[in-house]
């Protein structure tokens, strides 16, 4: 889906960087699905993703939209999404509400039931392994490993030094990989969920 400003979500850092400012509507057209997916991968409950996505783009509007600079629209929006998701998580905990892993209900284009089941299990494992990371590390891990952003792009978007991106990614990988390994070893338990 392309927006008028040419900022159709590429899903990776290799796409062209828009050379014109993008308002909230153009950003939404181009990147709403990216933001929704990113929020899910940050751990937001699926039932909240649409509302949180709205919040992200309202903040984007309040900030005056995206302007050409070192940060890509995706990583610029990701920084807002991290803040919105973090606040949402704090609010949810305060109200003693039960959060679920939004990643579980993402969908794929998998065709057969068997493949769909495998994909669901994969998502459950990734979701739970991501759950071992705090939001700051999870954001870097998701942007790099799943969304395909570059470390420079992540640094520019989140407003942190690229060295911090590397260190967070390194730590996140170590923790994620260990958790995933444990989860692979207990597939039966996963099948009881959901």
């Amino acid at each position, binding site marked *: 889906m392309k927006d008028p400003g040419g900022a159709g979500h590429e899903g990776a850092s290799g796409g062209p960087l828009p050379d014109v400012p993008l308002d909230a509507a153009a950003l939404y057209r181009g990147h709403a699905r990216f933001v929704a997916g990113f929020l899910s991968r940050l751990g937001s409950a*699926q039932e909240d993703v649409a509302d949180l996505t709205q919040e992200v783009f309202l903040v984007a509007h309040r900030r*005056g939209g995206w302007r050409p600079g070192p940060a890509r629209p995706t990583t610029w929006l990701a920084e807002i999404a991290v803040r919105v998701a973090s606040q949402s998580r704090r609010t949810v905990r305060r109200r003693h509400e039960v959060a679920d892993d939004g990643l579980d209900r993402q969908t794929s284009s998998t065709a057969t039931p068997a493949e769909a089941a495998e994909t669901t299990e994969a*998502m459950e494992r990734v979701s739970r392994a991501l759950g071992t990371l*705090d939001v700051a590390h999870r954001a870097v891990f998701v942007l790099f490993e799943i969304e395909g952003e570059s470390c420079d792009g992540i640094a520019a978007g989140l407003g942190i030094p690229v060295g911090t991106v590397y260190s967070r990614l390194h730590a996140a990988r170590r923790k994620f990989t260990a958790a995933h390994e444990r989860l692979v070893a207990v597939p039966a338990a996963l099948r009881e969920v959901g």
Partner: protein
Amino acid sequence: MSGDPTRLRDDPGAPDALRSDLAAVAGATTPLDVDAGLARLQGAIGTLPAAGTALGKAALLWGGGAGLAGVAILGVVVGVMRATTPEEAASPRPRAARVERTEAKAMPAAPEPAAVPEAEPAAEPRPRPRTTSADRDDRIAREIAGVADARSALASDPARALSLARQGDRDFPGGILRPERAAIAVLALDGLGRTSESRAAAERYLQRWPRGPFAERIRRIVDSSEGEGAVRP
């Protein structure tokens, strides 16, 4: 970037299960009704200026208990206020000073996977209106126009704003801007001095949309009325 490490899903040295799981997630999409969301966003933005001054003026007007003009502006911007974190809304400090930029400022930790078998009931996503016919755009446009009219009326004629909001609920029972109309109704009742009704409407709003786009501001109205016996601070 060439200096970046190889992504795990592309790294032959990573476990096969890890690579395949990450690839599966990377290829997945999150359900989202983009058209409805865009319409809702545009409705929420309305005629709001992109940033800064109008928002600040609205916040000042509200905080000072100014008249209906403040209420009207707030009606437009309240969604944006809700969209920020409470720290942003409440604190006069510059935004940049609050952006998470260091490792030392820890984010909330997530549960360890040791609790893998935890069986949380999977709540179904809230149903969202879905139409595919050509009149959908027109319907959304009419719904947005109705909300815009109601917002405009808040300043000069809260009774009309209330009437328009309620008419919108009747005309668009499954509409995407129900939270916006409900918030306008709360503000209109407040503007009319019908404080008990305003509070009741606010409480209904919070029951229905506890994390809706205006929930934080509506919650303040309820809290304020609890503390001072009046809806308006």
